[in-house]
């Protein structure tokens, strides 16, 4: 379950505020498949990043009692200077797995 409370998010472009969300309150229940539709640049990715906790709303809060994965497929997350194996080990480590379990 993910709860959004009075969430507003905007970016400032050339002095203008471009709103992605305007005072949105909604609850996304667990075990529900949800699709987000929107035009190019509407803020789908930003919303996903905010749900994933790596971007933050300008006003309001997003909270969840559950644990979930980081947003996948939104570029980033892999460090170019590390090998694939090292990257995966890194992810295991930050999720608190022990060395034996990793190997």
């Amino acid at each position: 379950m993910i709860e959004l409370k009075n969430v507003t998010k905007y970016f400032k472009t050339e002095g203008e505020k471009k709103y992605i969300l305007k005072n949105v309150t909604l609850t996304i229940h667990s075990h529900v498949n949800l699709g987000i539709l929107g035009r190019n640049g509407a803020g789908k990715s930003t919303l996903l990043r905010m749900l994933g906790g790596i971007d933050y709303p300008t006003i309001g809060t997003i909270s969840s009692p559950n644990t979930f994965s980081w947003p996948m497929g939104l570029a980033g997350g892999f460090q170019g200077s590390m090998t694939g194996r090292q990257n995966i080990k890194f992810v295991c480590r930050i999720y608190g797995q022990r060395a034996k379990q990793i190997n």
Partner: protein
Amino acid sequence: MKKRTSFSIFKSVVIALFLREIQTRFGTKKLGYLWGIIDPMTQIIMFSLVKSALHDRGMSGIDYPVFLATGFLTYNFFKALMNGSMSAFDANRALFSYRQVKPIDAIVSRFFVEFLVLFASITVFISFGLFFGLNISVKVFNMVILAVAWLGIFGIGIGILFAVITNFYETFGKIISFISLPLFFLSGLLYTVDSLPPIAREIILYNPIVHFIEMIHGNYFSVLNTDYVDYEYMIFWTIVPLFIGLFFYLKAEKKIIAS
């Protein structure tokens, strides 16, 4: 999956970043480990040669290379902490897409990497000192350790503050690297404060690094003392940047992650 406390998350992230830092810095290029030693080594050889070329009598009771080594190693440690912190956010930005990874973890892990580098280079230098029969005995061992640890805290405080500022004003980083060029000669690495004329002494004591270097020198060599070390001034320079840095960091954490 069981929920973890924020401290255990912090711990596992710092360990993961620490290992990553070591892999990327030293792993790919096999010579990586050596740079921590070659760099101060060349400096010490160079300045020792200059000193002997000038027919300087030097300080009685002190082997000049050892004097240089104590200063350079700690100064390099501080500089690496400061510069490393400033580039820590950019170097780890891709990893901020994991929710567990907070920007400050990058700084903390670099702090431990620098400590490891310092420890390794000290070990190598001690063996060199013993090999060449230099006098490397320490006067007050505990105070030297305290001074180095204190310098570490001072370094991380400055580092956090500068890292947050650099994140929003890129030019700040350039200004700092420009300022730190003459800092090498103004930090009491090549001379003791006592050997300076009174006016120069007064000016140079405004530099907090001088106090740390003097504290190390004074407690390391039996013929030197710590008369010029102002502990209150050092506490001021440790606490104020650390707290201002952490305050700004807390305010800006979300912006740093999202940017």
